[in-house]
């Protein structure tokens, strides 16, 4: 009855067991050599407290600009993928629409570029 889900349950059980085993076993069999980097938050950007390394307690605002631009072009890709998959079925109308979409983002890109938003200084 539950046959289709059995592999899934086994998979979960295996994953759980492995996690439990690793966490339990690591302190006993692993070497302990601590350094500062190991105690930092993992993959979470710059340490916000107590004092960031640069800028005397402030974050450079340039990060924000770069992040915003990244999101913009990320979203562009998100829309381009489904378009690419269905391009033949969408026909000419779809092509015109996607060109308009990319052009609109292009205007914003030209603006940022001309205003020095891409220079890091």
């Amino acid at each position, binding site marked *: 009855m539950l046959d289709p889900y059995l592999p899934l349950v086994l998979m979960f059980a295996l994953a759980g067991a492995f996690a439990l085993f690793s966490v339990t076993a690591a302190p006993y069999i692993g070497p302990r050599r601590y350094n500062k980097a190991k105690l930092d938050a993992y993959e979470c950007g710059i340490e916000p407290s107590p004092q960031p390394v640069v800028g005397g307690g402030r974050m450079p605002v340039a990060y924000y600009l770069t992040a915003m631009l990244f999101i913009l072009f990320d979203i562009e890709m998100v829309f381009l993928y489904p378009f690419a998959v*269905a391009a033949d*079925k*969408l*026909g000419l*109308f*779809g092509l015109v629409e996607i060109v308009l979409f990319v052009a*609109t983002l292009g*205007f*914003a890109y*030209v*603006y940022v*570029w*001309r*205003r020095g938003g891409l220079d890091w200084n």
Partner: protein
Amino acid sequence: MNLLVAQAQQIEAPQIDYGAIAPLLVVLGAACMSVLLEALLPKHQRWAVQLVLTLGTLVGATGALIFYATSERPAQGVATLAGAIAVDSPSLFLWATLLVLAFGSVLLIADRSVEPGGAFVAQAAIRPGTIQDRAQATKTGMQTEVFPLTLFALGGMMTFVASNDLLTMFVALEVLSLPLYLMCGLARRRRLLSQEAAVKYFLLGAFASAFFLYGVALLYGYAGSVKLSAIATAAAGTDRSDTLLFAGFGLLVVGLLFKAAVGPFHSWTPDVYQGAPTPVTAFMAACTKVAAFGGILRVLTVAFENTQWEWRGVLYGVAVVSMVIGAVLGLTQTDVKRMIAYSSVAHAGFLLIGSIALTPEGTAPGVSATLFYLLAYGFTTIAAFGIVSLVRNSDGEATHLSQWAGLAKRSPIVAGVFTFLLLALAGIPLTSGFIGKFVVFSAAIEAGLAPLVVIALVASAVAAFFYLRVIVLMYFSEPAPDGPTVTVPGAFTTIAITLGAVVTLVLGLWPTFVLDWAGTGTFLS
């Protein structure tokens, strides 16, 4: 096999009635062009080119609108772009109103005679109080990004009033709001106040958008569609739980009422109106009000018309609260911009009366009345803020009421025009304000809201007191020795103020033409 056949078929493109949405396309297309110009033109050419482009766009869009409105078109309106945009008579009226009011606002925005270099700062990102900030206060450059921002906001407003489903409405709401948040922070003088206004408006606006979106989600859960007509159809059947419907409705309406600065959702209004550059305040007070009430009217009459007996009491209360807050707190204000802000809260209450004036038979006498009121109020407000920008001292605009004492002795014309505009806001006969109130209250009585009309009349009388107080102050007080001077405006501000004042007078004397036009059709459902 069937699956393969289905996959090979072409995806059908939605039908687009380009003629109907031409005004919208013109405005949004020009906004994109404007961004490109901002990027490519050298600094000294930007202002002139942007101004020509913006005014040309408004004229072109109005031309396209007139062309479509006078051509052969379906009387009940068309739904285009897969039903996302409804172009019907109220849409066309609201679009025309928005375009004309935006024209007046852009003239105020572009003016560089009243404040050398214009009301906008050259580099809004410089921190207030720093050496660079003090240096740029004396320079005459301005942030010409305000022109594309205005066009984007206008495009959002036009989409908002015509959107036929809630998702389009949400996107339009963001398109109109985000540029406004930025524009609030661009004032040349009193930078901190201006930035405070921008941050407050942004935070509270983001909150209101979240309410709106949550409402949309619940209504989708209820009706299985975000289309306004589908929600109406779903609400007509009785087999579903009403909890989702009314929870969704409540959240949605909170978002809308926030944008319209109604009643208990008004708390941002005085701070933002005061801190924003005066031309932007004029734009917000006139055009945002039109857009927000256009959206409220459409949502209430199309999606929620057949559930009106459940929600009417709530909005009845909101209208009362809005009128009372506007009238009573307006009395205590000492700043002329804050005073007009509270006056706009009171007016929002009157407009809400028109919006909820639906009859049991399913007609909406309040729609044409509210449309007229919006047009009349918009022109009066733009002219009033135009006048506010003229009264100045060395720190910029002298907005404290004590500084307005004896203004009639310094400048009888400015005091005279401002008096006329205040009388229009108070709703004295021979002004458009009177006709607007008259038609809204008549519609409310027709819809059985007579007690609300009585409260509205009392609120009008209380509000009239603080308008009259300013008039008395201008005419019967001695001017302060170090009082402000009245700047002689250049062509742009003069045209904007004259336009506003003349329309206020003309609509007060011969309102029939516009009233007929506002009443030509109903919302497409």
